[in-house]
């Protein structure tokens, strides 16, 4: 096919334009991967600066103010700009393929979601170059955040608002994709677990992000327009922010963790050469975690003073989540049991995840005990706990997914030796950094302090913790090297390099832009595996070859997001001079204008003709 040849020799400009306008979920996945990876590295550098500041007592590597900015930006960036988009990268790359769809339900909105996230992420970081990033902690509690001088927190508020809108759009897109776009025979109870977890996580996004949206609006009005939601002098109450933030914030943990569980479920089943043990129990546990995840947010607020009744209710609800999570842990273990286990990098991350995450879960039950939490609260014990959950759960999953799905996304397997080196450096470094922090916390070291004194028994622990951070950094650098060397030298692999079970492996790597030439007929759980056990190479098609409908590319999502980005500056700087309001009008004009254009201009997509598909198959 002539266009295929042309794609191989395109100029840089045309490739760039292609990515700026793409609505293809596989390309958007790559955009998410690159952007999320970039923010992950920047956030990691911030973490290194934090650890270096704490390597010795009374260190003066950074100032107190800069330290506050570092911890705030590290936390915010890792959650919103690294973990979320990287999860979205794999959801985009894999979910449509796993359910046998040619595209997502709303390709245009998918692209809009990415560009909103990226512009929001950039906005969040603009503070670094305009004289101070956000410094009120990633939770931005009022009144610290409402009284923080400068524009740092304003950038936090506007940046999160814009990228949050993108996430909400992405969540709705995946919900509808999974509901409406499944291939013939792909019933709900035949969906791979990663798709199930993506589905539940998207539902959580839908119900959790609006609370953050409102919280950020209230914060924005307080900081920029003189309202008094969180200002006691005007009758306001800062606890409202805490509730709104955590009504969003706790489900957010599961928005990240559930897809991570899904990733491990795929990998463990594939490399144990066994069907996932207790599939329906896993689905049930996923839904139950999602449901319970909404009723526990106030466990972040035990020491606020809600009283024993409220604290008890939220403590019990929180501990209840250990049950479905325990179900999952046992199901992974039973999947391994008796399996024909193949240990490679993806599998190493999965095996490392089980004990690591279990540790995080155990300390989770400890901090869930409201009375004990008065001791743990705001100490390094909590820091250790949530890094065990988020790094041990989510980041390990992202590394595992990178190795597992890299061949599907790029057609090459990441170097296994380098992968294993990355794993061991990162795994050992991680436990060195954070295991000791449990004890630092129990010894009374508070979180978010920029220095600690000599002679309090904290020196050695902090030095070990910093050394561990360097091991993690080395592991990450090796991974980056691995990505480069694989891209340059790696050998092309076929569609199914792992001997895997699910639909995404039934098509070439990387997949053609229309994914499936003929939609596959799904005959059970692990559809590709079923066909293999019956001696067939690939899926049985559910339809004859016919015309394929594809969506048109569009530059509007980029323009729209740029409009909101510009308006954001106007909102911030009008607090100094109302002339800046002109930027609000310009930016909103661009954004709303592109929405209007999208509404009035017909966009019906195009068809790939049957004859071209047949011809391509022959070539």
């Amino acid at each position: 096919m002539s266009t295929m040849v042309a794609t191989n020799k395109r100029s840089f400009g045309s490739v760039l334009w292609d990515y700026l306008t793409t609505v293809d979920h596989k390309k958007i996945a790559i955009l998410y991967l690159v952007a999320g990876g970039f923010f992950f590295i920047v956030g990691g550098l911030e973490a290194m600066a934090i650890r270096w500041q704490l390597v010795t007592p009374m260190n003066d590597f950074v100032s107190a103010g800069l330290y506050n900015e570092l911890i705030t930006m590290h936390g915010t960036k890792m959650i919103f700009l690294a973990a979320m988009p990287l999860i979205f990268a794999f959801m985009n790359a894999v979910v449509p393929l796993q359910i046998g769809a040619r595209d997502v339900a709303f390709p245009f909105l998918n692209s809009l979601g990415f560009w909103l996230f990226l512009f929001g992420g950039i906005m969040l970081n603009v503070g670094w170059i305009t004289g101070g990033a956000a410094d009120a902690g990633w939770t931005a509690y009022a009144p610290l955040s409402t009284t923080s001088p400068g524009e740092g927190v304003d950038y936090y508020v506007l940046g999160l608002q814009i990228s949050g809108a993108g996430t909400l759009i992405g969540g709705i897109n995946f919900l509808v994709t999974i509901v409406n776009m499944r291939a013939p025979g792909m019933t709900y109870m035949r969906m791979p677990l990663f798709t199930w977890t993506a589905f539940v996580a998207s539902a959580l996004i839908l119900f959790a992000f609006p609370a953050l949206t409102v919280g950020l609006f209230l914060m924005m009005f307080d900081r920029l327009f003189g309202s008094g939601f969180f200002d006691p002098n005007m009758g306001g109450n800062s606890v409202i922010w805490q509730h709104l933030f955590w009504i969003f914030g706790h489900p957010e943990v599961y928005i990240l963790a559930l897809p991570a569980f899904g990733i491990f479920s795929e990998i463990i089943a594939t490399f144990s050469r066994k069907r996932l043990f207790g599939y329906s129990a896993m689905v049930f546990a996923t839904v139950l975690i999602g449901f319970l995840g909404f009723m526990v947010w106030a466990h972040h607020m035990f020491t606020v003073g809600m009283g024993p009744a409220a604290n008890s209710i939220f403590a019990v609800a929180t501990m209840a989540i250990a049950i479905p999570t325990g179900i999952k842990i046992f199901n992974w273990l039973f999947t391994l049991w008796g399996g024909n286990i193949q240990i490679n990098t993806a599998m190493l991350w999965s095996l490392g995840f089980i004990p690591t995450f279990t540790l995080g879960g155990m300390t989770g039950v400890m901090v869930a005990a409201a009375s004990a939490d008065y001791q743990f609260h705001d100490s390094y014990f909590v820091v250790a706990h949530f890094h065990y959950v988020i790094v041990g759960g989510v980041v390990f999953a992202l590394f595992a997914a990178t190795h597992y799905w890299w061949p599907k996304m790029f057609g090459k397997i990441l170097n296994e030796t380098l992968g294993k080196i990355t794993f061991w450096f990162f795994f050992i470094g991680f436990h060195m950094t954070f295991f000791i922090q449990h004890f630092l916390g129990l010894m009374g070291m508070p979180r978010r302090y920029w220095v600690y004194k000599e002679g309090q028994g904290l020196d050695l622990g902090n030095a070990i913790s910093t050394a561990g951070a360097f091991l993690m950094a080395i592991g990450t650098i090796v991974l980056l090297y691995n990505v480069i060397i694989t891209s340059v030298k790696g050998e092309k692999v076929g569609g199914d390099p792992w001997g895997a079970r699910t639909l995404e492996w039934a098509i070439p790597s990387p997949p053609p832009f229309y994914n499936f030439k003929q939609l596959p007929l799904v005959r059970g759980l692990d559809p590709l595996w079923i066909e293999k056990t019956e001696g067939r190479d690939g899926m049985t098609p559910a339809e004859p070859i016919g015309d394929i409908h594809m969506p048109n590319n569009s530059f509007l999502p980029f323009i729209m997001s740029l409009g909101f980005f510009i308006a954001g500056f106007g909102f911030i700087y009008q607090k100094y001079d109302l002339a800046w309001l002109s930027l609000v009008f310009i930016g909103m004009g661009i954004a709303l204008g592109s929405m209007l254009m999208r509404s009035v201009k017909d966009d019906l997509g195009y068809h790939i003709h049957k004859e071209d598909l047949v011809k391509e198959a022959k070539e």
Partner: protein
Amino acid sequence: MSEHDVLNPKEMPLNPEKATLEGKNKFIGFWFFLGGETVLFASLFGTYLALNGSTNGGSSSQELFGLELVFIMTMLLLTSSLTSVYAMYHMKNNDFKKMQIWLGITVALGLGFLGFEIYEFYHYIHHYEFTLRSSAFGSAFYTLVGFHGGHVVFGLSWIIALMIRNAKRGLNLYNAPKFYIASLYWHFIDVVWVFIFTVVYLMGVL
């Protein structure tokens, strides 16, 4: 179904808004979005309920609110909900002209509502000096009711844009889902208003 059939259907099906995959996606996706909007307004209602007594020595809801205006606004919005049901009824019967007329009435009623709301805010600001900055109550009131008003503005612009864009070509399978979800949005605005007049105004004057 080819592009031509979508834009020029030989015969309109009974449910043109769900006749194409795009239509089905829009329909489901928009309902999901409304589920999210519910949480958004719940957060605003919760904030309002937490702060409606925090007048900071300024005007309280009992001093400010008059029920006559709110009653008229409520009637306008409730009626506009019925007229948009009529519009969708005619859409399903493939009677484009009548649909446009009923949508036009909906828009007119919505504009009336909006006018009263602007007058109400103006009244509070100039006669009571009650603003976003007066007190936490003021902040919460203007934010909740203002968010609803913002939704009304967006909904009206949306419906007007659809009416103008499609005025000449009539109904097809491409624009029917658009009209349908715009009307869902309009009903949702009414749903929120029912709680606003109950929780903010009626409970405010008690």
